[in-house]
């Protein structure tokens, strides 16, 4: 790669995530990067993307990045204003195609921790907890997880399993009683896109971002991630996508400035 890249790693994350969404899908989002991906998809290839927010907004056209997840920006021009009971029940009943989550730590099975670093009763770092993450990952047909990758965030064993991925392997979700056929679908980091092996339910690399080497993936993971021969490169942002992100969706850099 000799060409100077004109986008940040966070902008690349948003674009890669956005392109995973299809028109006329329903997506359960919080605010932050997941919502930015949804807003970008709505403004490009997926105008019919149906957004669900846990606090009760259904089908909004979000004008600018909301700061709070129940912010009135989350229900601008929505088709229905309802309640958490309604939004979560619709998800539990199967009306949510994609759930979008962030995470502090992830393990090889796509389980995530947003609760605590260190022991639960004597936390080294206390984090916010599940919020709606456990619910979204339990109910959505497919879950996409976005996080910053490092050897500290990609860990072989979580300090706390807040939110279910494939738990301890094939069939574990169904054995635990989670809705059949659900689970993590993709993990997107600043380095690569990952999926899960159908047989082992372990994470594997699907595409590396431009300029990222397999060594870099290894350096930034606490567990082994299979990287296939001749693995492809992730898509790069177009000028139009960058313009939308910087000028319309998050002009203040609330998320994309990080």
């Amino acid at each position, binding site marked *: 790669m000799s060409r100077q890249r*004109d986008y940040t790693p966070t902008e690349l994350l948003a674009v890669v995530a956005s392109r995973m969404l299809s028109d006329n899908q329903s997506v359960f989002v919080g605010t932050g990067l997941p919502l930015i991906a949804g807003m970008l998809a709505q403004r490009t290839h997926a105008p019919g993307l149906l957004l669900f927010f846990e606090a009760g907004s259904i089908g909004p056209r979000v004008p600018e990045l909301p700061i709070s*997840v129940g912010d009135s920006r989350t229900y601008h021009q929505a088709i229905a204003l309802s309640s958490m009971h309604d939004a979560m029940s619709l998800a539990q009943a199967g009306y949510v195609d994609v759930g979008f989550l962030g995470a502090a730590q992830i393990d090889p099975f796509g389980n995530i921790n947003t609760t605590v670093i260190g022991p639960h009763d004597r936390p080294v770092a206390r984090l916010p907890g599940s919020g709606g993450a*456990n619910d979204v990952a339990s109910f959505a047909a497919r879950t996409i997880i976005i996080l910053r990758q490092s050897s500290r965030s990609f860990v072989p064993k979580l300090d706390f399993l807040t939110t279910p991925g494939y738990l301890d392997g094939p069939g574990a979700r169904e*054995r*635990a009683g989670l809705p*059949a*056929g659900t689970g993590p679908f993709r993990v997107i980091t600043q380095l690569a896109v990952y999926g899960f092996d159908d047989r082992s339910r372990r994470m594997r690399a699907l595409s590396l971002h431009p300029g990222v080497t397999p060594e870099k993936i290894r350096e930034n993971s606490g567990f082994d991630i299979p990287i296939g021969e001749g693995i492809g490169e992730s898509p790069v942002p177009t000028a139009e996508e960058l313009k939308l992100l910087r000028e319309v969706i998050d002009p*203040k850099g609330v998320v994309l400035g990080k």
Partner: protein
Amino acid sequence: MPGSRGKSRDSESAAAFGLQERDLFWYLRAGSNQEAEMEILQSGEGQLLGFRDPDENRAWVQQNKTRALVDKRMSAAEAVSRFVQDGDFLAMGGFGHVRVSMALVYEIIRQKRRGLRMAGKTAVHDSDVLIAAGCVDQIEVAYTFGHELRGLSPASRRAAQTGRLKVVAEISNAGYQWRFLAGMMGLPFIPTRNMLGTDTLKKSSAKVVRDPFTGKPVCLVPAAYPDVALIHVHRCDRFGNSQIDGILVEDFELSRCARRLIVTTEKLISEEDIRREPGQTVIPHFLVDAVVEVPYGAHPTLMPDLYYSDEQHIAEWLALSRSDEGVQKYLDRYVFGVPDFAAYLEAVGGRARMQQLGRIERYEEPSVAPWAQRDGKGER
């Protein structure tokens, strides 16, 4: 699965939903669709907060909640002194930084309530200041310790990490919501399909049983009956009949499961106004114990259609709350140093500031994010 259904049809319908063969195996195996004993498969270790036998609660409701149209208007100080007791299990209406009855939160701090146990159901600025001020020392966490996109909450994290605050249980947002739903329905629990297989369940007060209808494991979240709930609304009459604009979050359920309910309102309207549009009523009067008229009573959180969150004020709190001394400075400036919420509003910028937040909420002026940076440092 009923035995009469062929596997080919199951495979087809499974394939239509993107199920793998492997999933299907567990799907069929787990779902025998046969009657099963309702054995307890797992019990969460978390403390069971705010649970009551539904019959005990029915008796309490019958004795303590009048159905009469009684004028319940009073000051915030009187409402807190009468209905919020030391040690109460407290739940706030609204969600995150939206429609939170901050006028009552500051009044609780001013009256130095202690030993409160709080529902951390996406509790942010409210729980952060209550924990920092020493009012809340136990919490059940769905989402706490964060200020959403603004970052983590220094004061309440410090309290948790030093042991001043005890996290007595974990749960998820939907889990909390359904605890309120079970309470509202007068039931001991609600079956749900979240939290299963996780440490969130292990540290919760939920149980997993084998569902007698499908034979699959199902989570039971226990009912919650908060001792007191505080809900900020757009308008209500003097009896407490209340209307809320925008999303309800879980306030429909919370207003119905809490024993005592204080409603703060932007505006008082007449009973005739309520009866003209009864479809707008979210909370009927017999659930309400006190009505407090407090314009801008959600500040610094957002009140849908009326005013945006005060990001400068929240940024000031986030900066000051990095130290215990800073917390004290904030509390002296905005709580102990002022007699009431009206004086607080003057201290945070008065009418001019409130009107500006109104313009931001109506998109007439851009919002600000003083805690964010787009300064070129963003790795571009």
